[in-house]
């Protein structure tokens, strides 16, 4: 079983910052993030993800709010991941990048460089934004406010944004391959630093943008850093099927997990990737305590502080580490290969994951007892991919 933790502010519950353990005044310091990631690494977790967005957090999914009682503001996730990379040795670092409004050329070299600074532990979690206010931060296009998710307009917009994201990732991936691994030759006799036949134009032409390449950054240590995305519906499932190594899904229960997996696997087959490993992780928000009663009491206390019960896209678990281990085993039975846990209060629930849940899973023989690979792909059992352009070049030579 694979385990990741999703880091977001002081935790996923909007009142999490009120907890004494939360240290909200340190959220904008490097030390805060270094501490959280060190805790996750202590638990031998596969990776952490860092949430991000191109506007302030909001209680509303499609517009900013004027609330002053919740954490607002955050640091760029790629920079946070880079800042902690030299301080950690084993754990994967997966920042969120927004495909809408950003340049795939910049994202590609940023994640490739994260792979260099972490010596092979980089990934990205790609997301879109349909928020009109975030489009206004860039001023290059307007996004119509979604009125109803099931309207044809909304479906069209969301489908376009995910198609753009798929192209974005395609460009990012091609750029990672635009240098063959052995392109740097340092040939003193001819004076050539690189073999330019091993550098490739990617010549991407799509509906939304075109990119020439090659990258300015050599192929990263993992060849292809990890690509992941969160998905709740058919359109994003298609993005997972086309482009991801890991997908995060939000099953309500085992049956739901089975249904989601069936849909993703069918999409994967249509995308022609049936033979490739695509991990599907279940996302769960967790309150972990010594008893279910304590966990529920904590949830109620935080809900009261927030002024309303917290509901999100993912199932909320309240209970003990052993009870969570039971649930994870049950869901794994439906075919999920891992879980991304969202700590309700990072300062409380993350140590519970690393110090209680992990030992419990280890006792059951369901989780590693030591880091057994040097790269994130290695931890996830994913091979280092061959370079698509090297293969083409070899075929051309063979003909």
């Amino acid at each position, binding site marked *: 079983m694979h385990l990741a933790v999703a880091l977001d502010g002081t935790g996923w519950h909007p009142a999490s910052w009120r907890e004494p353990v939360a240290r909200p005044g340190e959220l904008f310091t490097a030390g805060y993030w270094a501490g959280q990631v060190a805790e996750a690494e202590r638990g031998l977790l596969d990776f952490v993800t860092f949430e991000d967005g191109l506007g302030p957090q909001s209680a509303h999914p499609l517009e900013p709010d004027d609330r002053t009682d919740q954490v607002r503001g955050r640091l760029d996730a790629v920079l946070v991941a880079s800042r902690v990379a030299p301080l950690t040795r084993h754990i994967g670092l997966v920042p969120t990048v927004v495909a809408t409004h950003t340049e795939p050329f910049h994202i590609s070299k940023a994640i490739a460089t994260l792979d260099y600074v972490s010596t092979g532990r980089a990934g990205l979690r790609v997301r879109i934004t349909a928020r009109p*206010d975030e489009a206004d931060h860039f001023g290059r296009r307007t996004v119509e406010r979604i009125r109803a998710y099931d309207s044809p307009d909304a479906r069209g917009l969301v489908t376009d944004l995910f198609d753009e994201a798929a192209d974005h990732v395609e460009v990012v991936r091609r750029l990672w391959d635009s240098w063959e691994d052995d392109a740097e030759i340092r040939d003193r006799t001819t004076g050539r630093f690189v073999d330019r036949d091993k550098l490739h134009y990617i010549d991407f032409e799509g509906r939304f943008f075109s990119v020439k390449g090659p990258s300015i950054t050599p192929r990263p240590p993992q060849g292809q850093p990890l690509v992941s995305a969160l998905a709740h519906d058919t359109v994003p499932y298609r993005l997972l099927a086309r482009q991801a190594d890991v997908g995060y899904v939000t099953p309500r229960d085992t049956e739901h997990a089975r249904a989601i997996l069936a849909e993703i696997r069918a999409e994967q087959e249509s995308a022609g990737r049936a033979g490739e490993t695509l991990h599907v992780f279940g996302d769960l928000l967790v309150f972990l305590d010594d008893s279910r009663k304590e966990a529920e009491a904590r949830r109620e206390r935080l809900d009261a502080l927030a002024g309303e019960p917290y509901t999100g896209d993912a199932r909320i678990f309240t209970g003990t580490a052993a009870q969570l281990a039971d649930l994870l085993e049950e869901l794994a039975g439906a075919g999920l290969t891992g879980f991304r846990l969202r700590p309700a209060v990072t300062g409380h629930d993350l140590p519970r994951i690393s110090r209680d849940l992990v030992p419990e899973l280890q006792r059951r023989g369901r989780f590693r007892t030591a880091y057994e690979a040097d790269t994130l792909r290695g931890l996830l059992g994913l091979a280092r991919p061959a370079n698509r352009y090297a293969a083409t070049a070899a075929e051309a030579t063979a003909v």
Partner: protein
Amino acid sequence: MSKPLKQIHLAAHFPGVNNTTVWSDPAAGSHIEFSSFAHFARTAERAKFDFLFLAEGLRLREQGGRIYDLDVVGRPDTFTVLAALAAVTDRLGLTGTINSTFNEPYEVARQFASLDHLSGGRSAWNVVTSWDAFTGENFRRGGFLPQDERYARAKEFLATAHELFDSWSGDEILADQGTGAFLRDARAGAFVHRGQHFDIHGRFNVPRSPQGRPVIFQAGDSEEGREFAAAGADAIFSRYSHLEEGRAFYADVKGRLAKYGRRPDQLLILPAATFVLGDTDAEADELAREVRRQQVSGATALKHLEFVWNRDLSGYDPEGPLPDIDPLVSEEHISRGRAQVRMYRDPVAIAREWRELAEANKWSIRDLVINNGNRQTFVGAPATVARTINEFVQADASDGFILVPHITPGGLDPFADQVVPILQEQGVFRADYEGTTLREHLGLAHPDAAAPAERAAS
């Protein structure tokens, strides 16, 4: 009484994609592994340098329609490396070149503000411009910008970024766990910018960073570049490392500050400089000659000539005489993605001059290129180099230097070990950091301290 000695500012440029980096030397290491950057940064910090500097290029250079393969090719992402370097250093400033043409203010401001938070106030932005369609082919925008508008866009880009940095005044975050007030002001980060190049509004989502705004650097020598720097930059990278040229540039740029209501000490002038050290001056001279030969292979010499001739010269013998044909004058240039070709504005005259120079000295193509460019700025025993640097600074030819060693990543070590102690002994370079932020190292005021009346009124 004599004037007190000026304090020298020193910084280091990680050598990479340029024609002075010697990758063929056995001492040359990786230019891409993080360990190289970490070594270089630690050396700079050990020597109490003001900052480390990273350049940027957004497309691989080409010559004759093919990727240029004789220099170091490939570099990492600027922001990512600087953020990682913040983890292995405590005081060193972290300066990155970021292009204002193929980026958007909201994103760049976020990244610099984040870097400033994550480094405890050590970030700096070298604002550069580009307009060319060649680089644009890697971006959504393509090659959209007429050349004469690049500074207009850069100026508005910088002004917009400042509006975003200033959209948080710094006292909004209460994080009061007792009362439940995280923010003092619900509108923290609100901004509206309506201009010719950017029409944006909304909420900036990074709170005010330790330096308020990153330190702003500018490079560029044109009339517009000098005005741009005088109007708003904290430091300017110049390429004048010869005394009289340096003094003229220094006087010119510092003389422009008054009309923007700024004092001469609010803009530092820092030329890039290379160096070769030896035990004696004579040994250093000999070593410098060797380095120049390493920097200019026969193949490199021919390619360098092509910048001027603008045609394929691969058939020529680099050890032979210069081509007797004239340069091709054309809108299309054989070299792409390289700024220096713009220096050769009258190629026919330059070719004539070079031919005469080569004939008079009996120089081959390679001899000419070796003798004509790439001459190291400071060559000598450590005491000589220290003395020369100090003379430059005291004579107002610069406020210090950005040193560019020719070897990655160890090339800075001899300077740190041998020259810096002499400067410290002479009392012209700090013995230790006195502050924690880059602004403090550079003697620049915090932006919030500059206009207290304005802050109080808001």
